């Protein structure tokens, strides 16, 4: 069972409310959800489309062929035409539910007096969404009491009394029950996007300070932490710019708190000098870059995997960093905890490469087991450092015991200039050599902490992917297990290459699949292994990779 339903309208028409009502109802009924939002960068008008994929098994990607279409405005119809290639598409079997006042005329359409009845019952035509929601539940074979429960959960208290009769009337419409979705038992799951998962993991990891500057799609994490700030004791500071946000991150971490910064590519650009400062001062920081299509302002509300080389190289000079790229919201939680742990342990910046797809797409994922979480701040304990204390003491691993101010009586001296073991500026060139080697040799042990890539399928054609492309690739390999094999990374720097090389040597053909135009991960693999991946398959229209998109390209390449 696999149903795709799309609610599409202009920004400001309440698409989100209808989407949330549907998602809540279907999640509560025990179905797995993937909820994508496709929208223009504006407050009114344009396009705002929510697509829900409803399934009886766990999925992590969209399916662009609509089974049910609820257009709220005729202006959005061209976006959803069959074969448009970007938005959820109309097909021959798509059922259409719409308001008879909308002037929409599509084959197979069920036209209902939604705004007319909404106005009659509440005095507000906007309640038409609730009417259509009622009709949708009827179409999906969901009982009215479940729809009502969801409405009580999602709608603001003040609207419930007037809107629940609208819901009931929508439900009573003569709509054919096209599906009958029985109640399923689904326990141990949550419905989350990566902004929520990263935010929740940051709180669990002990984040006490967030600094940032609003930028779509990175702001979701700021908003999440702000909403939980008082309850969990977090100072959320909207800085004057991203330069300040990143330097605040260094200051807060130097003084001993776990911090978080989130942004998108353009904001990250302003943080780069501070990234280098964290590298030189060996200050742990965690930064999320929620990628969107660039260069420059690009497409603010769309997705892309095109900041990989950028975050790998960002910052002047040479320093150790780690870069993770979550596959799903579930993975984002785990990788965020790991980013905090390893950045503290190795005293390095950790970058989490999210993207708009991950940040905005709600997915049903397994609930995290907090019993598995073991926190460590990795601050030096008495007896583990030499006295007098030196912040940059030379050690075989390159990791110096880390104190923070007032942890002991010892002062903590951190310097962005090249410095000696005590932290004092030094222009001694022998010292320079020792310090460069000390800082860089931490990467050896760091690499050992990372996981091997995930491998799925048993076919002769090897697909190589990373980050948010996972859901689409996983689905495709499950469909073609005898043709395809997948090797997929969620930790992209430092790069663990053994398993990849073994897989590549056995493959008949290797194809890099990425959400960008220049196959950046394939380029990284070539740089690190000397092995060039000849075939690449990219997507750069700002929309997430789907199994259908990749499948079409693989057909063209005569691989499947």
């Amino acid at each position, binding site marked *: 069972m696999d149903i795709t339903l799309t609610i599409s309208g202009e920004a400001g028409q309440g698409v989100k409310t209808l989407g949330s009502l549907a998602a809540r109802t279907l999640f509560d009924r025990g179905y797995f959800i993937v909820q994508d939002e496709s929208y223009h960068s504006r407050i009114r008008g344009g396009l705002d489309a929510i697509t829900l994929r409803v399934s009886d098994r766990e999925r992590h990607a969209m399916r662009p062929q609509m089974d049910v279409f609820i257009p709220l405005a005729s202006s959005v119809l061209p976006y959803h035409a069959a074969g448009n290639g970007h938005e959820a598409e109309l097909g021959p079997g798509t059922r259409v539910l719409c308001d008879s006042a909308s002037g929409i005329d599509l084959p197979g359409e069920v036209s209902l007096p939604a705004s007319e009845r909404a106005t009659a019952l509440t005095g507000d035509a906007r309640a038409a969404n609730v009417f259509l929601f009622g009709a949708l539940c009827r179409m999906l074979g969901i009982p009215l009491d479940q729809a009502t429960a969801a409405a009580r959960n999602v709608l603001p208290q003040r609207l419930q009394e007037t809107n629940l009769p609208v819901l009931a009337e929508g439900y009573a419409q003569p709509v054919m029950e096209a599906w009958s979705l029985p109640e399923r038992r689904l326990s141990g*799951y*949550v*419905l*989350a996007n990566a902004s*929520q998962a990263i935010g*929740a993991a940051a*709180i*669990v990891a*002990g984040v*006490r*300070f967030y*600094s940032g500057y609003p930028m779509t799609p990175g702001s979701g994490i700021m908003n999440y932490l702000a909403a*939980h*700030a*008082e309850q969990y*004791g*977090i*100072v959320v*500071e909207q*800085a*004057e*710019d991203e*330069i*300040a*946000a990143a*330097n*605040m991150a*260094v*200051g*807060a971490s*130097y*003084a*001993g*708190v776990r911090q978080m910064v989130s942004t998108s590519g353009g904001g990250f650009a302003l943080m780069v*000098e*501070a990234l280098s*400062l964290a590298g030189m*001062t060996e200050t742990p920081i965690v930064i999320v870059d929620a990628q969107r299509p660039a260069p420059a302002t690009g497409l603010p509300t769309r997705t892309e995997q095109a900041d990989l080389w950028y975050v790998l190289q960002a910052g002047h000079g040479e320093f150790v960093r780690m870069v993770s790229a979550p596959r799903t919201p579930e993975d984002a939680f785990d990788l965020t905890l790991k980013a905090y742990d390893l950045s503290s342990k190795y005293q390095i910046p950790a970058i989490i490469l999210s993207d708009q797809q991950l940040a905005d797409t709600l997915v049903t994922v397994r*609930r*995290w087991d*907090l*019993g598995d*979480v073991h*926190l460590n*701040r990795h601050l030096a304990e008495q007896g583990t450092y030499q006295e007098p204390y030196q912040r940059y003491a030379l050690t075989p691993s390159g990791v110096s015991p880390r104190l*923070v*101010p*007032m942890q*002991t*009586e010892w*002062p*903590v*001296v*951190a*310097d*962005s*200039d090249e410095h000696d073991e005590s*932290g*004092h*500026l030094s222009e001694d060139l022998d010292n320079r050599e020792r310090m460069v080697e000390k800082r860089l040799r931490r990467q050896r042990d760091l690499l050992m902490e990372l996981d091997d890539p995930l491998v799925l399928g048993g076919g002769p054609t090897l697909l190589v992917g990373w980050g948010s492309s996972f859901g689409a690739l996983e689905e495709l390999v499950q469909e073609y297990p005898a043709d395809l094999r997948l090797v997929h990374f969620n930790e992209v720097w430092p790069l663990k290459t053994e398993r990849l090389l073994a897989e590549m040597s056995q493959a008949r053909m290797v194809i890099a699949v990425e959400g960008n135009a220049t196959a950046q991960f394939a380029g990284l693999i070539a740089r690190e292994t000397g092995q060039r991946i000849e075939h690449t398959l990219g997507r750069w229209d700002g929309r997430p990779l789907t199994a259908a998109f990749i499948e079409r390209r693989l057909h063209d390449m005569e691989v499947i």
Partner: protein
Amino acid sequence: MWKNGMDIAWCPGCGNFALLDAVNRLVESSDIPRSHFLYVSGIGQAAKLPLYLKGVNVLDGLHGRALPAAQAAKIANRELTVVVHSGDGCNYGEGGNHLLAAIRRNVDITLIVHDNQVYGLTKGQASPTTALGTTTVAQTLGVMLEPFNPMAAAVALDCSFVARTFVGDQDHLVSTMRAAMHHHGFSLVDVLQQCVTFNRVNTFGWYKERVQSLPDDYDPTDREAAFKTALEWGDHIPIGVLYTHERPSYEDLHPVLDDQPPLWQRWNTDMAAYTPLLDELA
């Protein structure tokens, strides 16, 4: 040049030496233990001062970016006494936006600006406070930008504490910096000092002839009078505490920064506390 057993990177005769002596006097005479001080700086000759102090915490960051780091460190640990030392270029040029925001944010830290009206470490270019018409290696046709008036800008922004002092008067220097440090809220101290190598106009003698302590009956809480005083520059340059506005600091206003231990000491490993976070998503 060697001093206090350290190889100090300043030119002989630099105004920074008097400042260093004053800071040492301030730290020595203070009841606050050395390990509770955090000195933060940007980049420049002035910004090296914290590295010549003993026993205090130091975070020597990026050019222009000392203030964001210093404010965050203070938020992380309210028990630290946080003082920023950096030059006119660092604070009024590169970090201008951060100065505006720091004044508005009013975190309880002190900013000491070593203002010698020129860029020293990069060898003689104009700073935001260089006088109109001054020719330099970079401004070969003379400075065409109106000089920045930090005192007037700070009063205009209702900065919680605004003062100016001069390296030629040790007692005034120490007492002004002490008052700033004890003031609750964001404090700005502009310190006039000579650059013996690159500023041949605003010399020690030039300042000495012009600086005048504010009269005893001066009322620093009168904002309009303070603004007028802040505009005085030329034959007479007023020094002293120009303006104060006692009000709650950022930390006082922030409900998270209450009477509990400082943020950095709050560390929770009881995972049960986070169950509601996951329940919310189910």
